[in-house]
C-alpha cells in the first residue's frame, strides 16, 4: 500500500488516521460539529473488520470504548463541548484504571449548547481539568486536515505507550474544512507495539507504580488475568484504599505523563529564529497567527509563530524559550485567555504578553491580530 492523496474534511482525516494507527472500535453519540467522524467510522470500520456502535449517550460511548480497549481493541470516540462534559467521569475512570483510549473533541461555542455550528477553543481547560481529582492528561490540537491525520496516529501511539486517555482537541473550523491531504503509509515504529507483557502469567500485575516502566495492559481473554480498577488499588488491581496506595497512585498518574513531556511535546515553528514578536497559538487560530506573522514581516516587524500541537502536558520549555527571546508574546485564541493564562504562569522574565481573543463564533483574522499587536508594539 502506498501513500493515498485525498481531498477530505478534517473530521474524515481523523478516521483515516485512527484506522491507519490500528483502531478497530468506535463507540459514539452524534453531536455537531463532530458527527462526520461517527459517520465515516460507521462506513470505514466494517471494511477492516472493525466495530462501530452508536451508543445511547456519551457516558456509554466512552464506556464501550474502554471495554473494547480492555479486550484488546484500540478504540476511539468523538464529541464536542457538552458531550465532552458528559464524558468527563469516564475520562477519570480511564485515567485511574489506565485504559488506553482516544477522545476526539471537535470544539464548538459554549458554555451550554452555545453555538453548535461555530468554532471555538474553549475546551482547553476542560481537557486538562474536566474530570475529578489530580491527574495529568495528553491533549493534541490539529490546525489542518493533514495534522488531523498525523496527530490521530500520534494520539493512539501515546495512548498505548502511556496507558492513558488521549484527547484530540480539534475545532469546528478544522473539522469541517476540506484540504488536500496525503494519507501517508505509516512506518512500523509509528504504531504502538501489541500489548504483550514481558513476564509469565503468574508474575503478571495489572499495575506498576513506576512512571518509567508502566505495566503492559494484557488484553482480557488471554492467559494473563487483568483487574481494571478505578478505585484506589494495589498492583493486582484490587480495590485497596490505603493511604500508601492512594499517595502512590495519584502521584504516579501525574508523573507518568509530566516526566515524559519532552517525548510528548510536538510544536511547529515559523520564522522563530530572530523573532521579536512571537505568536503562540493552537488549532484554527494558528492559521490566523501565521497570516499575521507574514503581514508583520512585510511591515518590517520580526514576527514568528510557535504552534502548540501538544497542549497537554504543557510544553513549558518551548514556552520559556520564546518568553526569553522575544519582546512581545501574543496569544490569539477563540476563548477568553485559557492558553494566555497558562503561558503567564511561566513568565518569570517580565516579557510582555497580550491576549487576543474572540468568542463570537467567528475566526480571528490576521488583520485583527496585527492591529492588536500594533497597539502595544
Amino acid at each position, binding site marked *: 500500500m502506498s501513500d493515498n492523496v485525498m481531498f477530505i474534511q478534517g473530521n474524515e482525516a481523523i478516521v483515516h488516521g485512527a484506522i491507519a494507527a490500528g483502531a*478497530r*472500535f468506535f*463507540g459514539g453519540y452524534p453531536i455537531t460539529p463532530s458527527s462526520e467522524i461517527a459517520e465515516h467510522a460507521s462506513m470505514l470500520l*466494517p*471494511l477492516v*473488520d472493525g*466495530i462501530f*456502535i452508536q*451508543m*445511547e*449517550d456519551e*457516558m*456509554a*460511548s466512552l*464506556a*464501550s*470504548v*474502554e*471495554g*473494547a*480497549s*480492555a*479486550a*484488546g*481493541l484500540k*478504540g476511539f470516540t468523538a464529541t464536542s463541548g457538552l458531550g465532552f462534559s458528559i464524558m468527563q*467521569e*469516564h475520562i477519570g*475512570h480511564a485515567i485511574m*484504571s489506565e485504559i488506553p483510549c482516544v477522545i476526539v473533541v471537535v470544539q464548538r461555542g459554549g458554555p451550554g449548547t452555545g453555538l453548535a455550528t461555530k468554532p471555538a477553543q474553549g475546551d482547553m481547560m476542560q481537557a486538562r481539568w474536566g474530570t475529578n481529582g489530580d491527574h495529568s492528561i495528553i491533549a493534541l490540537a490539529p490546525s489542518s486536515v493533514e495534522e488531523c491525520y498525523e496527530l490521530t496516529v500520534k494520539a493512539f501511539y501515546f495512548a498505548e505507550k502511556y496507558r492513558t486517555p488521549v484527547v484530540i482537541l480539534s475545532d469546528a473550523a478544522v473539522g469541517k474544512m476540506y484540504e488536500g491531504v496525503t494519507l501517508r503509509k505509516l512506518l512500523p515504529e509509528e504504531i504502538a507495539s501489541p500489548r504483550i507483557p514481558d513476564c509469565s502469567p503468574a508474575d503478571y500485575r495489572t499495575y506498576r507504580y513506576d512512571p518509567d516502566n508502566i505495566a503492559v495492559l494484557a*488484553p*482480557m*481473554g*488471554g*492467559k494473563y*488475568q*487483568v*483487574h*481494571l*480498577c*478505578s*478505585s484506589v488499588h494495589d498492583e493486582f*488491581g*484490587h*480495590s485497596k484504599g490505603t493511604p500508601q496506595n492512594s499517595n502512590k497512585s495519584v502521584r504516579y498518574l501525574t508523573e507518568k505523563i509530566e516526566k515524559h513531556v519532552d517525548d510528548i511535546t510536538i510544536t511547529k515553528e515559523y520564522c522563530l529564529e530572530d523573532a521579536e514578536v512571537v505568536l503562540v497559538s493552537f488549532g484554527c487560530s494558528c492559521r490566523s497567527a501565521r497570516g499575521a506573522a507574514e503581514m508583520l514581516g512585510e511591515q518590517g516587524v520580526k514576527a514568528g509563530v510557535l504552534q502548540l500541537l501538544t497542549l497537554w502536558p504543557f510544553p513549558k520549555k518551548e514556552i520559556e524559550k520564546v518568553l526569553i527571546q522575544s519582546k512581545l508574546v501574543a496569544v490569539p485564541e477563540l476563548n477568553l485567555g485559557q492558553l494566555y493564562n497558562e503561558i503567564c504562569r511561566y513568565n518569570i522574565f517580565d516579557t510582555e504578553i497580550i491576549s487576543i481573543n474572540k468568542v463570537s463564533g467567528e475566526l480571528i483574522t490576521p488583520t485583527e491580530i496585527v492591529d492588536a499587536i500594533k497597539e502595544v508594539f
Partner: protein
Amino acid sequence: MYNYKDYIIEDGLPHIWCSGCGNGIVLNALTRALEEMQIPPEDIVIIAGSGCLSRLISYTNTSTIKMLHGRVLAGATGVKLANPKLKVFCLMGDGDCATIGGNHLIHCARRNIDVTAILCNNFNYGMTGGQYSSTTPMNSITTTSRYGLVYEEGFDICNLVTAAGASYVARATAYDVINLKKYIVEATEKKGFGFVEVLAACTTHYGKNNKMGNSTEMMKKINMMALPVSKSKKMSHEELKGRYLTGKLQDRYDREDYGTLYTRMVEEVKR
C-alpha cells in the same frame, strides 16, 4: 475439570458483606453456575459498578473491571463486541442497574448484547447507608424516605427488560439458590441478553428500617413476596399486588444478538 473453587480467590475471603446479605449467595450461585458450564476462568470477564455487590470482583479468579456506577452494561458491550469469545458477566445492584444505569439497561436489552446481567435487588442503596432506589417498594422507610416512600412506585425491572427485547429474563430469590444457579446458566448459554434478577435481603438497612426481623426472618419475608410465575396465571390483579413473579419470565427464539447481526452485515459489505 474446573471446580467452583477455581473461580474464587480464597485469599480474598472472608468477604466484607453483612451477615444475612444476599450478595454472598449470588457469589455462590455464580461460581457454581460457572462450574456447571465449565467455562475456563481466562475466558471470563466479570464487570461490576459501585455498591455492595461490586465488591464481588475482589473475590473472583477471573479478569475483572470495576466500572463506573451505572455504566456496567455499556462497558460490557465494548468488551463483548471486541472479543466475542469472552463470557461477560455484569454484576449490579438495583441502584447501579435499574436506577442510574437504567438507560443502559434498556439499550443493552434492546440491542440484545450477548452478556449475562445479574441484578441483585435489595431494594435500597446499601453501601451509602440505605437510601431508596428505583426498585424500593411503595411505602417503604429508608434513610431518604423517613416518612415513608408514599409518593413513588418501584420498578418491576424484569417487565422493563422483557419489553426492551432481552432474549432471556428470569427472577429468583436469594433463598432459592438452586434455581438461581439454573437461571444464571440458562441466561449465559442463551445467545443474546440474559437477565437474572435476584431478590435479596439488606438486613443492615432496608430490613432494619422496615422491621423485617433478623436475617432468617427477612429471608422468609422476601420469599413470601415471591410468587412462581406458573401459579400467577389464574390470580387476580388484587392478589398479585406486591408480589414478585419468579421463574423464567422470558425465553425467546425470534431475536438474534447484536454481535451476530453485525458480523453478518460486515460479511455482506465486504463481499
